[in-house]
Structures are given as C-alpha cells and as structure tokens.
C-alpha cells in the first residue's frame, strides 16, 4: 500500500472544504426539491481506483439495483466523479410536491433520467467546486453522463487501469425518503500534488494571520 498522499492536517482541511461544498449542494437541492436534505460528514481515504466498485457491495447498497451518473472534471486538477442512486429514487422523488409540479405528476423515463443528471450536476459541481474555489483553482466539468445500472457501473470502474488516489465519499438523504444516494469523487495522485500545494498556501495563510 502506498503512503498517504496528503498529511492528516491537509486531509482534514480537504474534508472541511468538501463539507462546505456539500452544504451548498444540500441547500440547492432542498430548494429545488422542496425537501430537507440530511448531510453526512464526508469520508475521505486513499485507494486504488479499481476498488471503488467495492463501495457498492456492502451495507444497504448490496441488495438494491442502482442508477449512476458520471461527470469527469479537468483544469487545475482532474478527476472523476459519480453520483449513485438506488432504484427507489424515481418513485420517491415523484412524491415530492415540487417535483410533481415540475413534471406534471407523471414523469416520463426521459424526464426521470434528466432529473438524475441535473441532481448529479448540482451536487458534483458543489462538491468539486467546494474544493477548487477556496484553493483559488479553476476546474471545468464535462457534461454529466448516465452510466446505467449496477453491472455497467462495475464494468466502468473495473475497466480502468491501476490508479492510486483519493476517494471522497458523501452520502445524501432526503428527510422522510428512504432512497440512498452517494457521491464519489476520485482525485488521482497527480491532482493531489496540486491540491497539496494549494492547501499549504491556505493553511500557511491562516497560521500567519
């Protein structure tokens, strides 16, 4: 196993930046969906990218079918992001008054899929933007792309070459709804070098007052 690519202090700082980004994402989702978003503390860890599929094999995710949206980003640092929903998402979103109003109560399959693309776009943008903006780095996003069901997600994740990096894992929940949603952001080693430098500047600035 490779040593940690960021010090404990910098990992803590990065977690806080993600947390702030997710807070903004939660507020945007709450406004769009008219529901309270329960946020969790982001989980950060170093891993081989190919092991990411394993994150969907444990706990409540193991027994549910899922849908996923991927969205790569590039610029000052590059990486991969994905938002995953369990199969109950469409039925439970349809119950929300704000969503029902927007779709006339009976969303088509295309509208359902478009909704997931939109949600992923907002949440991933806030999460990655939460890292980039305080570090004064510019990052651009590719268009979100539907990956499909579990087998396609596994195939996509397993297909990639060995790549060590940092995985950011955040779970989202809407109050009163049981469907699961999870954001995964993978930052490869070369991106972490840039982030490490930017975090040094941020922390030095704070320490210097």
């Amino acid at each position: 196993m490779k040593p940690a690519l960021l010090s404990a202090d910098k990992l803590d700082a990065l977690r806080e930046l993600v947390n702030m980004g997710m807070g903004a994402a939660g507020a945007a989702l709450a406004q769009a969906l008219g529901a309270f978003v329960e946020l969790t503390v982001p989980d950060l860890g170093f891993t081989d990218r190919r092991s990411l599929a394993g994150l969907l094999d444990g706990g409540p995710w193991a027994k549910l079918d899922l849908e996923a949206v991927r969205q790569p980003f590039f610029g000052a640092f590059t990486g991969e992001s994905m938002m995953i929903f369990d199969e109950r998402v469409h039925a439970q979103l349809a119950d929300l008054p704000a969503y029902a109003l927007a779709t006339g109560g009976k969303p088509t399959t295309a509208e359902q899929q478009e909704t997931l693309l939109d949600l992923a776009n907002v949440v991933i943008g806030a999460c990655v933007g939460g890292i980039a903006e305080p570090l004064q780095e510019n990052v651009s996003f590719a268009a979100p792309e539907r990956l499909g069901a579990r087998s396609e997600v596994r195939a996509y994740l397993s297909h990639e070459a060995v790549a060590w990096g940092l995985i950011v894992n955040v779970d989202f929940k809407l109050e009163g709804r049981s469907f699961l949603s999870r954001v995964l952001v993978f930052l490869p080693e070369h991106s972490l070098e840039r982030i490490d430098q930017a975090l040094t500047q941020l922390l030095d600035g704070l320490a210097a007052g």
Partner: protein
Amino acid sequence: MRVLIVDDSRLARMMLRKALPPDLLIDVVEASDGDEALRCVETNQIDLMLLDLTMPARDGYQVLKTLHESGRTPPTIVVSADAQSLAAERVMQLGALAFVKKSLKPAELTEILQRAGLL
C-alpha cells in the same frame, strides 16, 4: 469571555478562532465532537458556543437538543456549511442565538455579538 468552539474539523476551528474579535479578552476551549462539547458545557462556564452541525456521532442538532432539554444552553451561534433555511429554523427553535453560514467573517460575528448584548 470563555468561548467554546465545536467542530470536527481542525481547519474550521482555526477559522473560527480567527473570526473572534481580536480586542476582546477571550479564553478559547475547543471540542471536536458533540460529546466533548457537552462535557465542556458541564464542566466550564461557557459564555459563547460556536457550534457546527454536521459532525460524526452526536451532531450539532443533538447537542442543542440535549442542552435545550436540560435548560443549560449557553449563548450559541450555529456556524454551518448547511445553508438550508429549514436548518436555520430548527436550530433557532432549539435555542440558538443565531445561524450563520461557513465561513464566518469577523465583522459578522462582532455584529451578532453586539446585537445579542454580548459585546
């Protein structure tokens, strides 16, 4: 004035320290989770608590609820990344003095403290 800063992130605690009025004689106590925060309130005279909401194990809501039920809530400003209006409503119902979005600016904190008569 003794200020308790509660946040699981060291970066966030550093930023909150920076936001405190520099001309005020302040004794800062830090807690990195909700349980530690409750112990601090039990064993110290806390004049102001700056409280995060999203923390592992006992979160900020649970800290506020516990203190509210025991009638021991110190003057509390919730400083959270969670910017949902419902989050603000809920913490105010649980006895918080104010709800502000991270990152808290020094001028913003000074204004809240002045408004609350704490400065």
